[in-house]
Structure formats: C-alpha cells, structure tokens
C-alpha cells in the first residue's frame, strides 16, 4: 500500500512455546481506521499488544519477525519510546483513580516528568477533551475524580489521556465491550472523527462495529490472518470461506 505507517512483517508470537500468532503480514494505512476482527481467542488482542510491546509484560512470551513504524523496527527501540508514539485504550475504562479529570488527561506528561507551563496544560486538556467530545460534559468539574464519571465518559477520558501524548497510532482494544449501546454509539462516532488526526487500529469482535467505523478490516482466525482488505470489499465479497462464515454468523 502506498501510504502505510506501520508494517507487520512475517510476524509470529508464542506464549509458553505455543504459537498464538503465525506468520502475520499486515500494512496499516496512515489516517485510516483498520479493524482487526475475529472470534474470542483468535489472537487479536495479542497482535495489538505486540504493536506497542505491551505483551512484554507477560512472562514467557516470545516473538519472531518485525514490526516497522515508519520503516524503523519497533523492537530495536526502547519500549517506552514506542509506547509514547503508539497510544492504547483498553477494554475496560481505567482512568487513574486518585487523579482528577484534568490530571488524568495530562498524566502522560506528569508521569513521564515532562514539564509544562500551566498555560500549555490548560490548552492540552481543553483541546484533547474537545477531541473526544467530553469537554462540554466535564468542563465545569475538571477537578473531580475521573473515576466518578460514567463508563462511556471514562472510556472517552482514557482516549483523551492517550491522545494527549499526540501518538501517531492509537490502538483500541475492544474499547466498547463494557459499555451500554448509547456510549458505544458515541465512541464509534468519535473513532470516525479521530481518524483525521491519528491512525487507528481497532480490535473488535463485533462485525457491525468493524463495518461501521473501519476503512480496512483484517480477519484473524486461530492466530492466522485469513483475509485483509478494504472493509467494503471484505464485507461484500469475502475471498475466503471462513471469512464469509464468520460474517454470516455461522460460527463465532
């Protein structure tokens, strides 16, 4: 592809010497949303955790192959630097419980010891909260605890926290799986807006969600990349029988 920002090349991952991902080749288009779709246990979460090297927190994991960010192998960089460039939002909202909304947004700067003037802080907080469409809801109680917000608001706060670091890529690991339908709708709308400024990789098991928000879809099954292409193409004329079966709900 012509404008790819992240390339996964001949990539395999092992847990306890058991292969969980085999021979993945994937290129992610800049400023697009790419869904990684597949049933539970197919390795999709492992795959994106390998992209920001969070898999290294789990002992007994081993990887093979390369992941290139703008042509540079991620595994030759320091993990802290990789994670600053590739932000992540998790399945369950996890704002820092003893920080206010305001502190949560700039926590990436504070925890990394990056000094900001109050003016810069205010600007970053307002801009990022605007970006995730949370500003109007919380602007009068920025100094309340982040964990007092509703689930959907907490998740948007976590997205703001990741976006405040101005990452090149945002990884979303089933970001709506613990939210109610209205909050899901808000987040999906948001994903669509956010791709103007950041490349998004979305892990989901929801076929509908992949269809609604993503430009590209990769279908993963049993640790294997079955099919990858434009969401429209993949959904209307899947090339592989397994993709077709999954999309039509014949297995899940």
């Amino acid at each position, binding site marked *: 592809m012509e404008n790819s920002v992240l390339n996964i090349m001949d990539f395999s991952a092992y847990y306890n010497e058991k292969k969980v991902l085999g021979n993945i080749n994937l290129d992610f288009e800049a400023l697009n949303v790419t869904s990684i779709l597949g049933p539970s246990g197919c390795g999709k979460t492992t795959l994106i955790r390998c992209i*920001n090297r*969070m898999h290294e*927190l789990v*002992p007994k994991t081993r990887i093979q192959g390369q992941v290139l960010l703008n042509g540079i192998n991620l595994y030759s960089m320091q993990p*802290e*630097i*990789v*994670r*600053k460039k590739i*932000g*992540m939002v*998790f399945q*369950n909202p*996890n*704002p*820092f*419980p*003893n920080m206010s909304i305001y502190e949560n947004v700039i*926590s*990436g700067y504070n*925890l*990394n*010891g990056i000094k900001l003037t109050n003016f810069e802080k205010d600007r970053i907080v307002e801009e990022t909260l605007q970006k995730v469409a949370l500003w109007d809801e919380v602007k009068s109680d920025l100094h309340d605890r982040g*964990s007092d917000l509703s689930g959907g608001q907490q998740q948007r706060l*976590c997205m703001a*926290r*990741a976006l405040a*670091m101005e990452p090149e890529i945002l990884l979303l690991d089933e970001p709506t799986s613990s939210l109610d339908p209205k909050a899901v709708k808000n987040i999906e709308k948001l994903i669509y807006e956010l791709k103007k400024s950041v490349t998004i990789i979305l892990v989901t098991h929801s076929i509908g969600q992949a269809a609604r928000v993503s430009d590209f879809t990769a279908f993963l099954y049993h640790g294997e990349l079955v099919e990858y292409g434009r969401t429209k193409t993949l959904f209307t004329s899947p090339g592989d029988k397994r993709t077709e079966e999954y999309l039509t709900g014949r297995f899940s």
Partner: protein
Amino acid sequence: MEKYRIYKNRLFSAVITILTVISIVPLIYILVLITMKGIGSINWDFFFNVPAPVGEGQGGISNAISGTFLLIILASFFSIPVGLLTGIFLSERAEGRFSYWVRVSADILQGIPSIVIGIIVYIWFVKQTGGFSALAGGISLAIMMLPVIIRTTQETLNLVPDSLKEASLALGVPYSITVLKVVIPAGISGIVTGILLSISRVIGEAAPLLFTAFGNPFMNMNIFKPVSAMPLIIFKYAISPFENWQNLAWGASFILIVFILVLNLFSKFVTEKWKTQF
C-alpha cells in the same frame, strides 16, 4: 416437638450472648482498672520529670516517653524502607522460588517470640558494639515491625488492579515510575495502615528491649547510649516494692494504652479517608 426446637433455639442464642459478654469483660476490666489506677498519677511532673528516687516523691516518666519515641523513630527508620521495598518486590514478582521463600521467611519472622529477637540482637549487635543502646533497641523493634509491613504492603498492592499499571506503561512511563507514582499511591492507605499497626504492635514490647535498650533512669537522646521505654518502666516498676514506683507503672500503662488506641483510631481514619476506589 415444635416447642423443643424453639427452646433449643433460645438456649443457643443465650449461650452465644453470654459467651460474647464474657469475652469482652476482660477487655473492659483492663481498660477500667488501668484508667482508674493510672489516671491518678498523670500530672505535669509525670510528663516532664524523670522518676524520683525511692522515698522522694513520685517524679515522672519523661525518660520513658521520650525513649519510646526515640525507639519507634529508629525502628521505623530501619523497617519502613526495607519493609516497603520487600513488599513491593513480593507483589511485583509473585512468581518464583525466591519470592516464595521471602514470603515464608516473613511469616516465620512474624511468629518468632519477641524475647528471642531481643537475644539475637544482643548477640549480633550489643556484644559487637560493646554496650546496650537505643540503636540496638530500635533494631530489635524494627525486626518485629518488618514482617507486618512486608505483608500488608504486599497484600495491599496485590489489590491494585493490573489495568492501572498497564494504563501507565502504555503511556510510555518507565516501570519504576509506574510503581512509584501509580501503584503505590493507589495503595497508600493500606500501606500507611500497615505501618501504623506495626508500630502499635511493637510499642508495648518489653521483652526485646530488655537485652538491647536496657533502660535508663535518666533522660537520654543519644542513640548509642541505653534508653528507657514505657514497657520497660512498667516491667521494672510494677514488680518493685515501692508504692511511688508502682504508681508510675500504672500511669505508664495508661498512657501506653492511650497511645495504642490513638494509633488504631488513626489507622482506621487513614483507611477510610485515603482509600482509593477502583
């Protein structure tokens, strides 16, 4: 048949109530007795004077109060950093044989009689340094505080969800900073409570101090010299034949219990106020 069952039920609840009352009677008796006997000796002199020689009035226990504070400060100075770091280690590296043995050792250490710890510190430290000292007393109390701090720190940090650590690491925050600035603040109430409880556990210990801090009839703030402590004064004066010394022992018991009560109430307050809701 029905009546029999009702009687059985009543009998059972009566037994439970009576046993419950019996179990709190000693506690109330201790508190009332110590308050009654001890409160009479509390006055200005009691806090600001050293014990008077036999037959020369009552004097006070300022040497023991200051000594106890000195010992607690020394013991905290040694045990808090070591205990905290060990607790963090155990919670972060729960797997593995080394962690297992550290956990087992901490549990065994907790069960070692305090007098044995006193003797060990006597052999290791007092004999080597050539004399009883506040420092030796602080070390023996520190050894007693250690397992409590280690285990409460570890157990509190185990309750901090991994998702918080992940949130911080995913922002590119180094592991050490994540532990210091995210994990520990989230568990701070439990950690502080553990430290306070460990202090209240050792503040009343006389046995390990007999061989280490030894006691001192005079005011002393030099950590290399013997120092008095409230439990030591209670031990020594309660078995003395002189009434003015016995009164001092009652007064010291009363103050000691007030200290422990305050520590416990304060730790409850910390638990409530600083608690992090996950």
